């Protein structure tokens, strides 16, 4: 991996075939839906961006902008309709397993099986990531101590609090100590304390030289964490750069709304 970029996305496109009912639901949930000539929903529309090594890059956008779809494509959970991306030097289209082996993908949608204990799941996922048992054991101890879940390591996930579960989920998603972490909506559904633990940890990871890509619709989170931000709407990149470059001495929120108004003038009239 010689490139100075952890992620290079080239013209990513994702279209979903959908029924009229599903389309209506999407419109209802997100207020908008971008549909192509064949009636497919265009969730991501020719999206290109670069993420430098060692930075925290934030994809900022409203609901339905295509953030989660982009993150899922980068994590190879879904395949792009067109375009490609090099993630840690591997094509998401041709080498999905290699991509998955090099990244940690986190989202509140990824759940741990209630029946098992964090300790068992840590070992299980270490095996799936082919981590050496000794390394895994040492890492488990470190991570569980870092997140304060040592005392609950052998408690079934079903008996853990939501915050504890989320922390266990982060520890388990990073069993292989990846250099690149893709985090979809890091603080979604978390209480303020756990959210703070998570954002602190992301900063800690950056200090350790890790690259982090996160998606969010929370301006304060993007302002506080991100080195660079990509603003996406309707699956397209509207602006990209450092906080200062995008905000231009306004708050990020104001800058964002200016971009939104420029794109959806009809909605502002209402």
């Amino acid at each position, binding site marked *: 991996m010689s490139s100075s970029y952890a992620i290079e996305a080239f013209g990513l496109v994702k279209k*979903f*075939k959908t029924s009229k009912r599903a389309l209506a639901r999407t419109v209802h949930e997100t207020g908008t839906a971008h549909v192509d000539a064949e009636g497919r929903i265009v969730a991501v529309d020719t999206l290109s961006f670069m993420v430098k090594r060692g930075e925290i890059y934030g994809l900022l956008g409203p609901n339905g902008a295509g953030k989660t779809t982009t993150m899922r494509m980068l*994590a190879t*959970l879904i395949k792009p309709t067109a375009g490609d991306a090099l993630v840690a030097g591997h094509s998401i289209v041709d080498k999905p*397993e*290699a991509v998955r082996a090099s990244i940690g993908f986190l989202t509140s949608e990824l759940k*741990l*099986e209630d029946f098992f204990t964090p300790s068992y799941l840590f070992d299980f996922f270490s095996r*799936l990531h082919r981590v050496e048992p000794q390394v895994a054991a040492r890492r488990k101890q470190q991570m569980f101590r870092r997140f304060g879940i040592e005392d609950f390591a052998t408690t079934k996930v079903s008996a853990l609090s939501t915050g504890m579960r989320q922390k266990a989920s982060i520890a388990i998603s990073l069993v292989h100590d990846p250099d690149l972490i893709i985090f979809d909506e890091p603080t979604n559904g978390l209480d303020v304390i756990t959210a703070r633990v998570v954002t602190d940890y992301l900063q800690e990871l950056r200090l350790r030289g890790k690259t982090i890509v996160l998606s969010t619709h929370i301006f304060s989170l993007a302002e506080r964490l991100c080195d660079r931000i990509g603003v996406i709407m309707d699956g397209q990149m509207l602006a990209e750069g450092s906080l200062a470059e995008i905000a231009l001495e306004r708050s990020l929120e104001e800058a964002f709304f200016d971009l939104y108004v420029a794109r959806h003038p009809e909605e502002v009239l209402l």
Partner: protein
Amino acid sequence: MRSGLVAIMQKELKRFFSDRRMVLTTVLLPGLLIYLIYSFMGSAMSSNLTVSSDYTPKIYAWNLTEPLAEVTEAAGLDFEPVSIERMDNIKQEIANKTADLLMVVSVNFDAELAYELGEEVPVAQGSAVGAGEVRAGAVPSISLYYNSTRVESSAVYAQTQAALSAYKEALRPVFTVNAGEEQYNLASEEDTAGFMFASLLPMFLMIFLYSGCLAVAPESIAGEKERGTIATLLVTPLKRWELALGKILSLCIPALLSGASSFVGVMLSLPNLYQLESGGSGAASLLDSSVYGISDYLMLLAVVLSTVVLFVGLISVISAFARTTKEANVMVMPLMMVVMLVAFSAMFQTSSETNFVLYLAPVYNSVQCMVSVFGFTAEPAAIALTVGVNLLVSALCVVVLSRMFESERIIFSK
């Protein structure tokens, strides 16, 4: 073997076997419940149809002649004489289930009978009709009044009728059917067991194997999807086929155990259930499974194992379409109906399918193989073909399931 595949299998098995409630409800309970229910049904039905041994039936007779009294007494029937005035009352009592039987013998029974037999017509003492007055063509008759809805009444009716029939045949035998002491049924013990097993067990086996698979597969596939835990697995470097194959193979074990539990329950309860047909005694020997040899069991095992893999594969693929376990259980109903219909069809079969092409049809081929093994007509080539077809379709299920795990519409559908 690949480490991802092994890890998935170990996790699935740990999930199942360390969950006491799951083991109890899918492995122990089905067999136990079937055993208890079938045994209870057997004993309840047989006790409904047998009369307590110390019961004295209330039986009445009008005009019971000397020879008839001897015949019935010899059969252990003790009739109480009744006057003509009370006959209607007795009939009412029988209708009300407080009396069991009323026998009414025609007025000139002995005289008419002698006339019919061409003997000298006796002059019965006190008889209203003289010998010369026996009308030609007047057939001597006996009427038996009983109540078919009362077990005691039915039993004493059958007993009386049997005694009278035997008496009638003894008086003037025209011909007899199976009247001797000989063993008339020439079926060997093996044939009898084979016939019983071949007509019953394929149906039981197929249904229980299917329900065994149904108890574990939707939970593991649709359940993981519903709870969002499958996506957690999909972001690891694990190959999709490893996940699909690992799940299907490991689910076969609890599915097989669950099916075996139900099957054992049925086997153990069959003698109890069959009390009603064989009077409680011969059932166990009728169902003596020792008539089968080791090769029969091996062929059966191969068919059962491949059928379980097939069922788990099919149910897993269907479950992957469902968003919730509940939805999955509804979606697998049509397959269940097909399996049950095909399994039931085996009950009415006298011999297994001989057309080899039909062994290419999954489910049907398994049933046919089971019928043939139990009926001692198994063709190793047909068994091999069935196992091959089942494994091939299962492999196809693994491929389809792997593809489904790659599909965002399947994994992220809401």
